[in-house]
Each structure stands twice: as structure tokens, then as C-alpha cells.
């Protein structure tokens, strides 16, 4: 199908302000939604659901969270995983300690707790920028998981420190199989992605970008810098918190504070760098890329080795992975800072004019 916007004239600003103003994009989204809701449940194996699709959704949500803060509001953060940990632990505790609380309310409160913690750790951003702010968020990344482990109340005094999450049950329906967990994550992530898109195309989103691009001019326009930055930290951490809760409740089935480490924070940062800084779509692309690449590389290397009759040394694939990741990140930082989302946009612009490039 040709990707054309020619002839699709917008007769009203309302039509122009849709998320997908171009018909082909809307059809594409419908197809994607249909595949995710109907196609995947029909064909996906348990391995695909638990090892690929669920984490992909969870990481997409965390990447959206980081993108709101770093991509839109311009505040670099290395504390993503810490805010995920807060969301997971808080959701677990609300579920544990408040009798009869619906799981979705626990999720929201867990996200809310992460938002509050995020806003507190965002306070340094009022004074410092860039590298120094990243170091301040690094403090959060070390302090929060440490605190969550140290105070055993958070893990309900479990001896091992590993806590099994409660079942996800909504109106008597339990999301217990991989497929059900996938559908639960899919709905949560889709709704929150839509909300994020709505925020960034409204005046709060413009305030975030204004502060990112030129804070003096933003202030002169009347944008309150302090409030705008703290709201960005809070909203971003809310997203990370919900992602953390999903990670625990729909992916692992347990809360493992140790898993929310600096490594995970960096992974999510790489997702937005590769996917596209300042793009909701890019958050998904980056998460998909970083989740799928190791698997594809693994398959390619093993198949290739078998075809050539070679024996791969152990640890080879993980080394190749590191090299490829490193090279890609450097490539995107230097050549295309706006990531896959921008490449996709360029491709669309080309297609739009095809076959007449002028």
C-alpha cells in the first residue's frame, strides 16, 4: 500500500490535531492493535509471551517514563530502575496491607508513590543541569534499592528478600496464565501510552519542551520552571513506577529489588537513545529493538555457526551483543540523535513524495 498524504487536506484544525492525521497511519494502528489483541493470542507460544512480549511492553512503558523526563523535559536521569523499584514495592505493600484493595488501585497508588519519590529526587534539578543532575539521580539509583533491602518491612520481613507477588485479579477474573498477563500488560501500557501522547501534545508537554530547549525564554513567557520540572519528574516516575509494578506482577511474579539496578537504568536509557529521544513511538521502537536484538543475534550466530560447521566458543554471543550495542549507541548519538523514530519519519516523508522526489 502506498503511503500518501497527498489529497488528504485537513479541513479543520481538529482534524489536523489528531494523533494520526494521516489515514494510512490510522489504518496501520488499527492493524497493529488487531495483531496485538487477536493475532498474538492465537499464535504466540508461551516462550514468546513470557520471554519477549511481556518484557517488551514493560520496558516500553519504562522508556516512555524516561522519555517524558529526558526526551521532553530535557532532564537527564540515571534513576529509572530505582523508581521502578519504588513502584513495585509500593504496589506489593498496598496489596498486602490494605484489606480488600483492588489491584488496579494498588497499581495507581504504587505509581503515585513513585511519583512522589521522583519529585523529591527531582529537587536537585532546580539547581543543577546535565551531567551533575545525572550524578544526583545516580544517588537515587544507589540509595533507593539499598533502603528497600535494608528496611525489611518493605519486603514483609521475608527471609530471602525475594517476595512473591499477589495474584492480579480484577472483578473475579485472575490474570494468571502468560497469555492473560500479556493482555493485562498490553491494556495497561496502551492506555498509559495514549495518556503520555495526550500530555505531550497539550500545554504541559509544550512547557516541558520549552524548558528543555531554552529555559530563559520559557520563563519570560510565564512558564514556571520549578513547577514544570517537578511535574516532569513526578509524571515520569509515575510511569516508571507502574512499569516496575508490571515488571513484578506480570513478568517475574516476584519483587526482586536487586534486579532494579543501574544496569537496568542504563538499558532503558539506551532504549530511548536508539528508539528516539522525545518520541512516544520511539520508546516502543527502542524497547523492541533492545529486547529483540539479543535474540536475533543469538539465532543468527548459532545458525551461522551450524551452517559453517563451526563450534562457537561459549560467551561469544554475549560479547558480540555488547559490541553491537556499543556501536549502535555511538552511531545514534553521533549520526541520528533522534533515533529510529526519526529514521521512520524520514522514510515516511520520502514515501509521501515517491516517486517524484521534488
Amino acid at each position, binding site marked *: 500500500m502506498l503511503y500518501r498524504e497527498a489529497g488528504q487536506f485537513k479541513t479543520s484544525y481538529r482534524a489536523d490535531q489528531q494523533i494520526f492525521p494521516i489515514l494510512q497511519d490510522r489504518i496501520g494502528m488499527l492493524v497493529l492493535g488487531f495483531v496485538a489483541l487477536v493475532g498474538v493470542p492465537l499464535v504466540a507460544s508461551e516462550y514468546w509471551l513470557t520471554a519477549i512480549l511481556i518484557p517488551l511492553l514493560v520496558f516500553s512503558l519504562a522508556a516512555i517514563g524516561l522519555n517524558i523526563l529526558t526526551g521532553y523535559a530535557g532532564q537527564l536521569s540515571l534513576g529509572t530502575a530505582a523508581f521502578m523499584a519504588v513502584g513495585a514495592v509500593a504496589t506489593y505493600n498496598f496489596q498486602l496491607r490494605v484489606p480488600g484493595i483492588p489491584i488496579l488501585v494498588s497499581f495507581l497508588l504504587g505509581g503515585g508513590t513513585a511519583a512522589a519519590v521522583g519529585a523529591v529526587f527531582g529537587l536537585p534539578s532546580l539547581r543543577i543541569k546535565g551531567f551533575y543532575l545525572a550524578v544526583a539521580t545516580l544517588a537515587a539509583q544507589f540509595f533507593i534499592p539499598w533502603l528497600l533491602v535494608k528496611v525489611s518491612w518493605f519486603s514483609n520481613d521475608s527471609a530471602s528478600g525475594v517476595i512473591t507477588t499477589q495474584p492480579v485479579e480484577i472483578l473475579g477474573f485472575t490474570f494468571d496464565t502468560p497469555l492473560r498477563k500479556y493482555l493485562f500488560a498490553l491494556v495497561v501500557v496502551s492506555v498509559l501510552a495514549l495518556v503520555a501522547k495526550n500530555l505531550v501534545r497539550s500545554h504541559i*508537554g509544550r512547557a516541558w519542551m520549552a524548558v528543555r530547549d531554552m529555559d530563559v525564554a520559557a520563563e519570560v513567557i510565564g512558564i514556571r520552571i520549578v513547577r514544570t520540572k517537578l511535574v516532569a519528574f513526578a509524571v515520569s516516575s509515575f510511569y516508571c513506577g507502574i512499569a516496575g509494578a508490571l515488571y513484578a506482577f506480570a513478568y517475574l511474579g516476584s519483587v526482586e529489588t536487586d534486579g532494579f539496578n543501574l544496569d537496568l537504568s542504563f538499558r532503558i536509557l539506551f532504549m530511548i537513545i536508539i528508539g528516539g529521544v522525545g518520541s512516544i513511538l520511539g520508546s516502543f521502537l527502542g524497547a523492541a529493538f533492545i529486547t529483540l536484538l539479543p535474540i536475533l543475534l543469538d539465532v543468527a550466530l548459532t545458525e551461522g555457526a551450524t551452517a559453517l560447521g563451526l563450534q562457537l566458543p561459549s560467551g561469544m554471543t554475549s560479547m558480540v551483543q555488547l559490541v553491537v550495542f556499543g556501536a549502535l549507541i555511538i552511531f545514534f548519538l553521533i549520526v541520528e540523535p533522534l533515533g529510529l523514530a526519526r529514521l521512520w519519519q524520514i522514510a515516511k516523508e520520502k514515501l509521501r513524495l515517491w516517486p517524484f522526489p521534488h
Partner: protein
Amino acid sequence: MTHDHNPGRRIGETLLAVENISLAFGGVRALTDISFDVREHEIRAIIGPNGAGKSSMLNCVNGVYRPQQGTIRFAGQTFRHMHPHKAALMGIARTFQNIALFRGMSVLDNIMTGRNLKMRCGLFLQALYVGPNRREELAHREKVEHIIDFLQIESVRKTPVGRLPYGIQKRVELGRALAAEPRLLLLDEPMAGMNIEEKQDMCRFILDVNDEFGTTIVLIEHDMGVVMDISDRVVVLDYGRKIGDGSPDEVRANQDVIDAYLGVAH
């Protein structure tokens, strides 16, 4: 350049009065005891050699800098110093000498951001988008489109401003300031670095804004021809001091001003 602009036609009461403003950065005295006033609907120019303190003066008026001495009276209220947010609320908008657009945003979003202060929907309504927030966005979009038409930048409305040529960026920055529907518009060298044609366009926009909306304008400009042409009254600064104040003709005849411009270059 000639314009059928009629200075003094509907000039009103004093809108802005700065009194005895002094500002220093460490040992550098950027402004020394400056006083002047700006009347409603007037186009008031500030001229002077580089480093004279013109930009610093605008920065004091809208609160980016805090003068050590003096007062600023705006719309009947007196302040020791302004605050940018307060200034914006009271209807002061401005452009910058070095373009200060939001580079990553489109022309449309840049100008929309100029109206952010007028938008009321809270975070929750924005998250929903449909309903009140969409109505608000559309209402403001309509106003912004008028500005885009007025400035003749329809064809680039979706382009990220960072990709536009300099002259167009200057125009977009004017648009962003106009979006706030200001009472007082501060323009810091809006025509610097432009060719004759672009300057003529910009002059026309400034005069039209003044004529149609009655916006009071304070304008810093180096091109004496332009200044003499479009301004009602002129303040002359030199080394942070006021050395002249009056109509273009008066200022042109002022010996101190002639010396500052023709004398030792600085």
C-alpha cells in the same frame, strides 16, 4: 523606507516608567541612574553603541535582571524589581537579541507556547485530551493561525524552527511574543542581521501590530534609518548612561548623541 505611520495619533498615558535604574555586574556598571517613560500605544526606541546597556535595560523591565537601584512602574503598579513570571502575567512579552526559540519544536508549537499562560486545563484534563482540553487547544490554535497568517509563515508551520533561515526565525520569535497578546512588547534588535527586504517586512509587521492592536512597543535597533522612521520617541544610552531622550528629530540634533555615534568608536 517611508511609512504612512502617523506618530502621536493615539498615544495615551504613561504605561511604563523606569526611575533611577542602576545595574552592575561585579565591577561593570551596565546601567547608571536611568529614567525614562513609555506611553500607551507608543513605539519607543532605545539606541546606543554596543555594550551601552540596551539589552540590560529590557532585562530589567521584564525581570530577567534585578537592578540594584531604582523602581519600575508598570500599569500603575510600582516594583523594586520585576519577576519574569509576574511580567508575563501583567502583559509584557519580548524577543531576544540572540534568537531564543525552542529549537526542537515546530513553528506552530513555538507560537502555541506563547499562549501557555492563558491555558487553564489541569493535568488530568490534558491526560484525557478529549473534551475541555481539546476545545481549549482548538480555540488557541485558531488565534495562533491568525498570527501565522499575519506573519506569512503558513508554509513552515509544521517545520522545526531549528531548520529555518535566520530571518524567518526572527519572525517566529515575534509571533511567539504576539501570541501572548501583550500590552507591552519588548523587541531586542528584531532586524539585526537582516537584508533590506527582510527589514522592510519586519518594519511593516511592527507598525501593523502597533496600529491594529494598539500594542505599546519598546524597540532596540541599530539602523538609524529605521529608528527615525518608525519610532515616536527615542532614548539614547551610552556607557550605561542616558545621553538623549526625545523625538527622532530632537535626538538627531543632540550634540552628545552625535559625539557618541561619530566620536570615538566603542
